[in-house]
């Protein structure tokens, strides 16, 4: 697993993808931060910033995950990984953790933005920490979604576009809910909706069920990816 993790991590920086992801992430996030907090005189809430961050993930995270399996499948190197003495779970986790590492490191670098806040006032540290954790976990779940969709195709573009579509759809659910006439369906969708789950974080509270939900979401998609490979052997 560690060998795959290391190779995957390295490949992000021999191709431009790693640099593009980090650069775009920090640039867009910095601009968002500036316009939603520093340049915004009327309100001092960070909710808007975190909300935009989540939207940004919908575009950026598929960039990070599109090649994970699609590229190996196209170049047939997956044959090497699948015939090596490594378990399927080990192979999938190696790749997931590599993407998560790039995402996590950029995310941590991005936290520097908040340091600026302390120079201008006294922000609510508890709220910031809760939000950072929540947004990070949502991103981690999106990485798993992208990982899963990348395992279904050998075309990176298809992997990226379908990941963007899937993530956007997962976010749009919360807009659609209100116009659904059935209360029971509303209830189910609300339970699954990533953004509805996020509401407590915006109200400055750490929601344990939401944290568990994001964790589970990531775990489910990693598991599904393992199943994709397990099933492919048999078909």
């Amino acid at each position, binding site marked *: 697993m*560690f*060998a*795959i993790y*290391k*190779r995957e991590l390295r*490949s992000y920086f*021999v*191709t431009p993808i790693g640099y593009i992801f980090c650069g775009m992430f920090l640039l867009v996030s910095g601009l968002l931060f500036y316009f939603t907090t520093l340049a915004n005189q009327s309100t001092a809430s960070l909710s808007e910033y975190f909300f935009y961050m989540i939207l940004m993930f919908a575009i950026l995270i598929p960039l990070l995950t599109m090649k994970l399996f699609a590229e190996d499948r196209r*170049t*047939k*190197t*997956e*044959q*090497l*990984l*699948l*015939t*090596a*003495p*490594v*378990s399927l779970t080990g192979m999938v986790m190696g790749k997931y953790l590599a993407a998560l590492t790039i995402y996590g490191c950029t995310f941590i670098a991005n936290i520097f933005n908040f340091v600026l806040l302390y120079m201008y006032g006294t922000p609510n540290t508890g709220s910031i920490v809760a939000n950072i954790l929540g947004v990070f976990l949502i991103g981690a779940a999106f990485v798993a979604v992208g990982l899963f969709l990348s395992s279904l195709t050998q075309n990176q573009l298809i992997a990226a576009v379908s990941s963007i579509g899937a993530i956007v759809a997962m976010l749009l659910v919360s807009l659609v809910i209100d116009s659904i006439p059935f209360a029971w369906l509303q209830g189910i969708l609300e339970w699954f909706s990533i953004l509805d789950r996020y509401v407590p974080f915006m109200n400055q509270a750490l929601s344990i069920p939401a944290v568990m939900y994001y964790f589970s979401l990531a775990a489910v998609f990693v598991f599904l990816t393992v199943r994709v490979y397990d099933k492919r*052997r*048999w*078909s």
Partner: protein
Amino acid sequence: MIEINGLSKVFGTQRAVDDVSFRVEEGEIMGFLGPNGAGKSTTMNILTGYLSATSGTCRVNGIDILENPLEAKRNIGFLPEMPPLYTDMTVKEYLSFIYDLKGCTFPRNQHLREICDVVKIGDVYDRLIGNLSKGYRQRVGIAQALIGNPRVLIFDEPTVGLDPKQIIDIRNLIRMLGKEHTIILSTHILPEVQAVCDRIVVINKGKVVANEKTEDLVTAVDGSRKMVAKVVGPQDEVLKTLKGVAGIRSVDVLGKRDTDSISYLIESEDRVDARKPLFYTLASKGWPLVGLEGMELSLEDIFIRLVGEQRKGRNVKGGKN
């Protein structure tokens, strides 16, 4: 060393491999032969754990690939039809990655260096794989299979797309590796197995049609011997006389190959040596026999007979390559 029992693989409605069984003993080089689409690659992919069989079992060194895949895979070095290379890595980085991937424990640099010496890729060690020629890529693919000193090596069409010199190099390499490893070599090039393999398994449409020692296969399929005789003398009379010699089944005129003699293709009856009667008959007529050359049935002939396919446009010549 390798035991395959009743192996079948069904893709949708198509039976790619149908009840295939064979064994490969320790230290043997087995040629796995069949036309394109016969099920060679599928069988090898099952053996290496890339695919799972619909039914049947595969054991490598006594370990079942399904029951204990990681342990079984540790015993196998696999070169797939398309070498699985990361073109954005140098040879050194790539082999080092494989070393980690296989979880090897012996000294890294020494091991990699030894393998590079064996497959002769030392001079491209620091170059990007993407920039290497096809022959070198194939070698890097073989190097990859050798890492971790697996006891079994499986090569899927290792010489496809190489130039004649490279093909000879790779064959020599495989022959050398066969001294220390058990090897399965798949190919549809017949002289290749004749040149390299101890045993041949022929597969067609998913079924095993022959499983013999290389030299046995040649005689098993056809007991009769073919030879080419060069005789100086009037063609029609010589032909008539030759047909009358005991033990000769048929005679064909091949034509004038040099200034005075005429060549005849002679096929003798099964398991009969017709050379002596042939000589005495010609001598008694006063027609000098200036050349007599035995022609072994080539694998191509055997192959065509076994799989019952007529290949056109190929002039099959006898003898070994």
